[in-house]
C-alpha cells in the first residue's frame, strides 16, 4: 500500500513538532517514544502498519483546536483516530503526520429522555450509548459488529451500519448534531436536539467523510424505545440462489424486517463449530430474519414471512421461542468473522453492496472466482440491503497468497460495481479500496468530491492518502481554465 511520500522537512523537524505539541497539551497527552507509539501503528486492517510521527491524545475540544490550528500553520498532517476499529485503514498513521487520538473523550455528557437524545464525546463506544439508556427501555439503533469497541466518533467518520440498518438506517440517519473542529482550529456546532440545520448539510457531509474534513468532538444521537418484542427465524435453503430470491420476495411483499442476514455453507459451518448456534449445517444458505414490534405484529409477520419462505423453497425453518434462543441465533452471525478466523490462518473481509436482485448472479461469479484464485471464500451478507461481506481465506505465510487474496477481493468489488453496486457499504474506502475508486467514479466525479475537501482543508493536511487515489492540489482543482473564451472540453456537443 502506497502512502504519500513522507515530507523530509517534517521528519527533520520532529523534535520541534513534539516540543510544540507538548507545550500546548497537558502532561501525558503526547506520546513520542516508539515503543508506546507501536500501539497506534494500525487499525483493524492490520495488514498495514506504519508508525506515526507522534501521537497526541487531547482531552478537550479547545486542545484539539489548538493542535489543529498549529498543524495548519506549520503544514503538518493529521490522522484522526477513534477506537481504531476501521476495517479499511482509515486511521492508518502517516510517518510525517500527527496521530490525533480521541480516546480520552470518553464521557456521555447528557441523556435527555424527553427529547430522546444522547449527547456523548466521540470516544464513547457505540454500545455504551445503548448501555446507558437500556434500563429506561431505550437503545441506539445502528449496531455495527464491532459495537463493543468502536467509538461513536468513528461511527460518524465511517457512517457505520450494522444488522438493523435495513429498518432503522445508518449512522447518518440517526445523528442529530455534532460539535467539530475545522482544520482552521475553529470549534463549530451543527444541529443539536432540533432537526435539519440551516444551510448546506454539513452534518450530512461530515458523516462518512472518513476523517478528511474535520474532527468531531461531540455527538448528539437520537435514541429509540426498545421494541416490545423481537423474534428471529432461521431459514435454510438448498441453494444460495433460492435464498437470494426469498429476500427479494419478502421485501417485494412490503415487509421490511428489522434485519435480514444471509450466510453461505462455509460460513454456516464455521459459525456452528464456533458457537453451536443451532444452524442447519447441510443448508447451502441460511437466512436470519428478525422482526420486531408489538407481539401481535411480530406473530402476524412471522406467519407471513414463513409462508413466503416456503413458497421460495425453504428446506428448514425455526423461529426463536425465547430471548435466549434469539440471542443464540444471532451469536453465530455476530461471531462469523472470528469463527472464520479459526478455519483459516488469515482472511480478508470485503464490503461491496449490490442491488438485491443481483445476489444470485454475484454468488455464481464468486464461486467461479474462488476456483480461479484457488482460495476459499465464506460469505456473510446483510442480505436485506444487498451489502456483501465475502471473507477470503488465505495464509499470509504462503508465498503470494496475500497478493492473490487482494486480487480476488478487488475482482469481487469490480463485479459489485459492474452489477450496479458500490465498492463499500459500511466499512469505508480508507486505504483499502482507495485505488479502486476509479472503478465506480469518473475522474470528474472524483475531482468534484476533492473540491469539497478543498473547502474544508485546502492544504490536504487532514488524513491525506485515504479515499482518493490521486491527490490533486486545490489550486489545480479550483481554477476554471477559461482561455480565449473557451472552457475545457469544447468538444462536448451543443444543441
Amino acid at each position: 500500500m502506497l502512502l504519500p511520500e513522507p515530507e523530509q522537512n517534517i521528519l527533520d523537524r520532529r523534535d520541534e513538532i513534539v516540543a510544540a505539541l507538548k507545550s500546548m497539551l497537558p502532561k501525558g497527552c503526547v506520546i513520542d517514544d516508539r515503543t508506546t507509539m507501536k500501539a497506534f501503528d494500525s487499525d483493524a486492517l492490520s495488514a498495514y502498519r506504519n508508525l506515526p510521527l507522534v501521537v497526541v491524545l487531547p482531552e478537550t475540544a479547545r486542545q484539539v483546536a489548538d493542535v489543529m490550528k498549529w498543524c495548519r500553520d506549520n503544514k503538518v498532517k493529521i490522522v484522526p483516530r477513534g477506537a481504531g476499529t476501521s476495517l479499511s485503514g482509515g486511521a492508518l498513521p502517516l510517518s510525517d503526520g500527527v496521530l490525533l487520538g480521541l480516546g480520552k473523550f470518553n464521557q456521555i455528557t447528557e441523556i435527555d429522555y424527553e427529547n430522546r437524545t444522547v449527547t456523548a464525546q466521540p470516544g464513547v463506544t457505540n454500545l455504551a450509548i445503548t448501555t446507558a439508556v437500556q434500563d429506561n427501555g431505550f437503545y441506539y439503533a445502528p449496531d455495527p459488529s464491532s459495537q463493543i469497541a468502536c467509538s461513536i466518533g468513528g461511527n460518524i467518520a465511517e457512517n457505520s451500519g450494522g444488522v438493523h440498518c435495513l429498518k432503522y438506517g445508518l449512522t447518518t440517519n440517526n445523528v442529530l448534531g455534532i460539535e467539530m473542529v475545522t482544520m482552521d482550529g475553529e470549534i463549530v456546532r451543527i444541529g443539536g436536539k432540533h432537526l435539519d440545520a440551516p444551510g448546506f448539510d454539513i452534518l450530512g457531509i461530515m458523516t462518512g467523510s472518513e476523517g478528511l474534513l474535520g474532527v468531531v468532538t461531540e455527538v448528539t444521537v437520537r435514541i429509540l424505545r426498545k421494541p416490545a418484542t423481537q423474534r428471529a427465524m432461521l431459514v435454510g435453503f438448498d441453494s444460495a440462489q433460492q435464498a437470494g430470491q426469498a429476500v427479494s420476495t419478502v421485501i417485494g411483499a412490503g415487509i421490511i424486517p428489522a434485519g435480514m442476514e444471509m450466510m453461505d455453507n462455509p460460513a454456516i459451518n464455521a459459525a456452528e463449530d464456533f458457537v453451536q448456534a443451532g444452524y442447519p449445517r447441510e443448508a447451502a444458505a441460511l437466512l436470519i430474519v428478525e422482526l420486531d414490534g408489538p407481539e401481535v405484529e411480530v406473530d402476524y409477520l412471522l406467519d407471513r414471512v414463513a409462508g413466503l419462505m416456503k413458497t421460495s423453497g425453504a428446506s428448514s425453518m425455526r423461529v426463536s421461542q425465547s430471548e435466549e434462543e434469539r440471542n443464540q441465533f444471532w451469536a453465530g452471525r455476530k461471531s462469523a468473522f472470528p469463527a472464520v478466523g479459526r478455519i483459516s490462518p488469515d482472511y480478508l473481509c470485503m464490503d461491496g453492496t449490490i442491488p438485491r436482485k443481483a445476489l444470485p448472479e454475484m454468488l455464481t461469479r464468486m464461486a467461479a472466482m474462488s476456483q480461479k484464485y484457488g482460495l476459499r471464500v465464506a460469505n456473510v451478507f446483510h442480505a436485506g440491503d444487498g451489502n456483501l461481506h465475502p471473507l477470503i481465506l488465505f495464509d499470509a505465510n504462503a508465498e503470494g497468497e496475500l497478493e492473490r487474496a487482494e486480487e480476488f477481493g478487488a475482482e469481487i468489488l469490480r463485479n459489485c460495481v459492474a452489477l450496479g453496486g458500490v465498492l463499500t457499504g459500511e466499512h469505508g474506502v480508507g486505504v483499502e479500496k482507495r485505488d479502486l475508486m476509479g472503478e465506480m467514479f469518473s475522474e470528474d466525479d472524483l475531482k468534484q468530491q476533492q473540491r469539497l475537501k478543498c473547502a474544508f482543508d485546502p492544504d490536504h493536511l487532514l488524513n491525506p492518502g485515504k479515499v482518493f487515489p490521486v491527490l490533486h492540489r486545490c489550486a489545480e482543482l479550483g481554477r476554471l481554465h477559461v482561455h480565449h473564451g473557451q472552457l475545457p472540453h469544447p468538444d462536448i456537443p451543443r444543441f
Partner: protein
Amino acid sequence: MAVYTPETSAEIETIIRDALLQKTPLKISGYGTKTGLGGQVQAPDELSLAGHKGITDYQPEELVMVARAGTLLAEIEEALAQKGQMLAFEPPHLEGFYGTEHAGSLGGVIACNLSGPRRISAGAARDYLLGFDAVSGRAGYFRSGSKVMKNVTGYDLSKLMCGSFGMLAVMSEITLKVLPRPEYVASLSLICTSLAQAQSVLSAAFGSATEPSGGAILGEGGGFVATIRLEGVQISVEDRLVSLSDLLASFGDLRVLEGEESSDFWANMRDIAFLDKGAEQVWKLSATPSLAPQVIAEIQSSFDIEFGLDWAGGLIWLSGSGAGLGSHIRNILAANGGGHATLMRASDSIRAIQPVFQPLGEAIGGLQTRIKTAFDPENILNPQRLNLGGEADANAF
C-alpha cells in the same frame, strides 16, 4: 430574459457553460412553485427543468426509483401508489400555501429538502436521496451515490444537494429510496388544557414502544389538541392504539381518528393548511421539542401569533406580522436550546428586510461559502437564494 428548458444533462451542461462564459447568473427552477421560499434570485436568465421529466427506472422490489428532476411530484406519488409504495418523508404539497397550480417537481422537493409529519420517525428528504447526477456551476457533469441502500463510497454528496436550493449544481436524474405504504393508519387525539400538557402527551407517546409516525398540536376552542399517528399492519396499529390509550388515559379524554378523518388531518399538517391564508408572515421553527411551549410563550409575550406544532413538538409553524418578528423568534430560539427559523411565506418587501434563512455564524458561514466555491465559484447558480453569509470566491483555493 431567456428561459432555457433543457431535456438532457448534456443540454444542461451547455447552458451552464454559456452562462459561465458570459458571467450571467441563472435562476434555477422547476415549475416555479416554490419561488415564494428563499431569497429573491437576481438573474437575467432562467434554467427551467420543466422539460426534463419522466420516471426512468422504478424497481419496487429493490425499493428504488429514478426520475428526472423535472418530473411532477404528483406523477411520482401516483406511480408509487400503484405499487403500494410511497416517499416515506411525506413531501408537503404546497400549492395551496403558495397559491400555485400544483405541487411542483421532484427536483424542487429535494433541492428544498422538504419533509412532512413523518420526518420525526422516518427521516427527511435528505435521508432518501440515494444518488444523483448533476452539472455543477463549473459546467462539470458528475455523479454521486448509487442505486443501492447502503453505500459509503466517497463523500455523501446527496446530503449536500438536499437543501442546497439549486445553488451548487443542477440535478439531472434523482435516485430515491422508496418504502412500502403502511397497510393501515389511525390517529389518537386528546384535548389538553395547556400547551405544556399537550407537549407532555407527545413526549410520553414518542417515548413509548407504540412507534408513532406523527405527533402534532393544534389550538382548538381555547385549549389544545394533541394528535398522534400510528401506522403499520392493521393488527399492530389496533394493538398499539390500545397501548397508547392506556398510556395517555390519565391526560384526558381520547378520540380515535380513522380513515379520511385521520388522513385529512395529517395532510392539513403536512401542507401547512391550518394557518390563516392572509397572514403577513409564516415562519417555520426547528426547536428542541420539549422547549417548544416555552419558545411559543416567549414569542407571544411580544407578538400576536397563530401557531401549530408538528414533529412531536420539534417543528413550530407560526404566522404573525411585524418587522421585528423574525429577529425576535431567532433570539428566543437561541436562548432556548438553539434551533433555527425560516420565513416560509411573506411578500417580497418583507423578505427583502428580514433574512429568510437563519443567519449563520462566521465560522459556519465561511465553510458554507467555501462549499459554494467548490461547486460554483462564479456564483452562476441561483445567487442569493440561500443566505450563506458571503459570496463564492473563485480565487479562494
